[in-house]
């Protein structure tokens, strides 16, 4: 046999598709889900677990009730829609009822637009920061101004307050330009910081007061008439709205009665329909039992019947059946623990008779399926109507509240103006009188501020003198106070102020979170640079700050902000609680940011610092241009991680009496309507936070990938 080893291909083979099992979805499934016996097992188990969880949750989610004004009503709707004993379903009615509260806290509804505008402008201000290359660089100016605009929009006040705050930077800049030629860069920077702080802390308040005073003096002539006009104009509108409110309240009462009238027969019918089969089952349990049955058989039947009937509350039973059912349940319950065999055997017949009787009742007065469906539709319609009416009621209530508040403000201001005028008229020489009375006093008591502190044995004339002086001074002081509040009201050019106590809900979380994020990044970077510094004092201060802030729980710092911070500040400075919380959260997050950035700085090769030095860049320029851009890029995941943590930690303010969404969920549960509701509120709050945190995470990924692409 000869072998032919020579071969020549006659035709080339074209490219062909791979086998079906090696491409597309089939291949993906094989490789990722079914690659080995362990993988198959895990896939099956995972799918089973996911199915188990979602099937239960989905049922709850899909059986959602949106039209309900209280948990009780919500349960009524669920009971009409489902079988007895199956009350599971989400009561989103609570969100529909309270979503504004969860979002805005007790911020006045009339000013929601300010909050929403602040949110929109926040997005605009963030655009140039987040998407540097996609939007115009001119927007940066707006971004820089936004931190001053936002507090003004939210807290209100005169429009010049944010401008005065911005002017602080101008003052600092001027100081920098003036001092640097004289005393070098260090003096320039320190001088600029000091000048800006002096402006903000010392100079701004008097200037602000003076502006209010000036505007008020111009306006005070016409103010009184305007206030009276406001009062007069409001009176008929308030009366009108009060009438509207009463009408709607009556309508709501009617709607509730109508709803209840529809509900009762439906509930009864549902009960009848579900109790029938159960009674059959009970009857079947006792079928064949009797005088010859054993103790064990009887016990099994009684226990089974007891379980079956447990869910049926006689309250909703059709007429005549309630007592009967109660009797059956009692008999069964008693017999469950029966140890006299004869008695137990005897009771079988008794129960049989009762069940048969009840079964007879279930057949009577039955509603047809069509009637039931009509009834259910009518009930849902009634609930929808009722909810709509309640929303109108809420809206009218808010409007009424706004108007009465406005009238109250006008009345108070008018009274203050009149009071002040009266004071001035009644005490022309008030200041002189007070000084004169003081001067007449013996030197030893001349400075006392309370008549109670007078030493015994003082001449009655002197006591009277002091009383006079005190009275005159008190009148002066109250005059001064009235003047102050008048100037602030009349002299304000801008937005109605909203006190911090009204802030709450997700808005508060956002304010604290955004402010904390915006301020903690630069502070954290400075701390990280400080920790790397060769200058001993700066280094040790940074390390100490970071370690102390990191080493103590945030909640402790928040409690410090609430209770202790005022002790460390100059007496008389009253710091807003929200502001104090923002400061604490900022400091806390900045310590973490500092450590994250330090990691980024450490990851940078020494050569980068050396190359920057060798080119003659000074410290700040080399940091700004060479070191930080690279170190921050490395640190992005850690920084965003810290931001997300910070944002979620804002919920801790609930412990110091601020109403974040979680705090409000407690408030909502404390009302009679929604007492006992948990999941829906927590899910809503969770989703709100998730949206923001997830967005931050996605943005960080986007940024990382973008920077990765740009400089490989």
């Amino acid at each position, binding site marked *: 046999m000869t072998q032919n080893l020579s071969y020549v291909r006659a035709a080339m083979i074209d490219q062909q598709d791979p086998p079906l099992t090696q491409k597309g979805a089939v291949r993906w499934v094989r490789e990722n889900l079914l690659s080995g016996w362990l993988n198959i097992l895990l896939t099956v188990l995972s799918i089973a677990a996911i199915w188990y969880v979602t099937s239960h949750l989905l049922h709850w989610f899909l059986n959602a009730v949106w039209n309900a004004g209280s948990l009780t009503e919500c349960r009524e709707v669920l009971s009409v829609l489902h079988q007895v004993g199956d009350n599971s379903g989400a009561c989103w009615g609570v969100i529909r009822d309270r979503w504004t509260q969860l979002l805005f806290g007790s911020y006045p509804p009339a000013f929601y637009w300010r909050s929403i505008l602040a949110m929109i402008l926040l997005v605009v201000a963030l655009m140039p920061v987040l998407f540097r290359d996609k939007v115009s660089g001119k927007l940066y100016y707006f971004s820089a101004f936004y931190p001053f605009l936002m507090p003004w929009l939210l807290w209100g006040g005169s429009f010049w307050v944010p401008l005065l705050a911005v002017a602080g930077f101008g003052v600092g800049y001027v100081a920098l330009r003036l001092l640097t030629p004289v005393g070098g860069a260090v003096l320039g920077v320190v001088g600029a910081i000091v000048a800006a702080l002096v402006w903000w802390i010392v100079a701004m308040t008097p200037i602000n007061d003076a502006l209010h005073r000036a505007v008020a003096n111009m306006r005070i002539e016409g103010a009184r008439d305007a206030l009276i006009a406001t009062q007069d104009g409001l009176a008929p509108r308030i009366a009108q709205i009060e009438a509207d409110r009463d009408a709607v309240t009556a309508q709501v009462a009617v709607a509730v009665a109508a709803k209840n009238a529809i509900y009762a027969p439906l509930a009864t019918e549902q009960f009848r329909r579900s109790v029938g089969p159960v009674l059959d089952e009970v009857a079947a349990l006792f079928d064949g039992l009797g005088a010859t049955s054993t103790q064990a058989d009887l016990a099994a039947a009684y226990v089974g019947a007891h379980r079956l009937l447990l869910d049926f509350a006689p309250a909703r039973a059709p007429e005549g059946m309630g007592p009967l059912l109660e009797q059956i349940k009692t008999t069964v319950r008693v017999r469950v623990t029966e140890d006299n065999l004869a008695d137990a055997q005897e009771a079988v017949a008794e129960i049989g008779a009762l069940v048969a009787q009840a079964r007879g009742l279930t057949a009577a007065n039955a509603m047809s399926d069509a009637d039931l469906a009509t009834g259910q539709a009518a009930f849902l319609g009634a609930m929808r109507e009722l909810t709509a009416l309640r929303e109108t009621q809420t809206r009218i209530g808010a409007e009424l509240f706004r108007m009465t508040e406005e009238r109250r403000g006008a009345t108070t201001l008018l009274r203050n103006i009149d009071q002040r005028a009266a004071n001035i008229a009644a005490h022309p020489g008030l200041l002189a009188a007070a000084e004169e009375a003081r001067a007449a006093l013996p030197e030893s008591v001349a400075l006392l501020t309370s008549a109670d502190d007078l030493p015994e044995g003082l001449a009655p004339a002197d006591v009277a003198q002091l009383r006079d002086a005190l009275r005159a001074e008190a009148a002066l002081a109250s005059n001064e106070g009235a003047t102050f509040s008048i100037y602030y009201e009349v002299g304000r050019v801008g937005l109605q102020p909203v006190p911090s106590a009204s802030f709450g809900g997700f808005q508060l979380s956002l304010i604290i979170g955004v402010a904390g994020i915006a301020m903690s990044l630069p502070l954290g970077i400075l701390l990280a640079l400080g920790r790397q510094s060769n200058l001993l004092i700066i280094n040790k201060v940074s390390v100490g700050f970071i370690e102390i802030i990191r080493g103590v729980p945030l909640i402790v710092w928040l409690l410090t902000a609430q209770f202790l911070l005022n002790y460390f500040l100059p007496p008389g400075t009253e710091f807003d609680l929200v502001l104090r919380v923002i400061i604490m959260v900022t400091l806390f997050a900045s310590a973490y940011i500092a450590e994250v950035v330090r990691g980024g700085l450490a990851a940078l*090769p020494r*050569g*980068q610092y*050396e*190359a*920057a*030095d*060798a*080119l*003659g*860049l*000074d410290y700040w*320029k080399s940091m700004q*241009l*060479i070191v930080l*851009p*690279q170190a921050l*890029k490395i640190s992005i995941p850690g920084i965003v991680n810290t931001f997300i943590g910070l944002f979620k930690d804002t919920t801790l303010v609930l412990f110091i009496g601020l109403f974040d969404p979680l705090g409000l969920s407690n408030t909502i549960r404390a009302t009679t309507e929604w007492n006992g509701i948990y999941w829906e509120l927590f899910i809503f709050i969770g989703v709100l936070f998730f949206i923001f945190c997830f967005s931050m995470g996605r943005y960080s990924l986007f940024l990382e990938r973008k*920077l990765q692409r*740009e*400089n*490989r």
Partner: protein
Amino acid sequence: MSDAATDRAIDRSQMTVSDEVAIQITAMNKWYGTFHVLRDINLTVYRGERIVICGPSGSGKSTLIRCINRLEEHQAGQIIVDGTELSSDLKNIDKIRSEVGMCFQHFNLFPHLTILENCTLAPIWVRKTPKKEAEEIAMHFLRKVKIPEQADKYPGQLSGGQQQRVAIARSLCMKPRIMLFDEPTSALDPEMIKEVLDTMIELAEEGMTMLCVTHEMGFAQAVANRVIFMDQGQIVEQNEPREFFNNPQSDRTKLFLSQILGH
């Protein structure tokens, strides 16, 4: 040893050493902690000189040239660069650094900036050159190192030799009067060494004052007017290249040369 640097005729017309002193180092000592790394260094560099510093690793040659632009601080003695004494005065240091260019073994380009931005950064921020003008200067020097077409790429996209040439261009954009090279070819593949050495030779041909730590003895022979041999932190021997290579005086130099030229 690479002969890369010697394969073309070198134009020596501009390679003149003047009497003007560029760098004056007197009795300079430096310690790393308690380790005496540089011992009694005395060195005068005249303008236009091309000095190659060689020696075994750990002999202090890198430290010496890093002292000249104060990437390392000396503890005793005096260093005068371009008439300015190096002291802890930050202003003097920044001034000297902007006059003295430096190339590193690992290039140390800024990876987050394009080639062009790498080159314009210092002129714009240190010299306050207008951006447009800085870019023109940068393109001029990028053409000179023969990679103008890479201007918009990032350093990570370039080969090692190209990166080192960009690093040289980056230094040149500051119009330095002195260039320091710290083992510029040690981290490169053999075929890339030549392109970098060619660039350095061109620089020498234009009369730049250069101090170069390198083991490229071919380069030393072709371009240097002085070779310095260092060991244990001291200058052991210095001479003009021909004498240095053909007739080394000290035993330590002989041993060193036999080791690097021997194979």
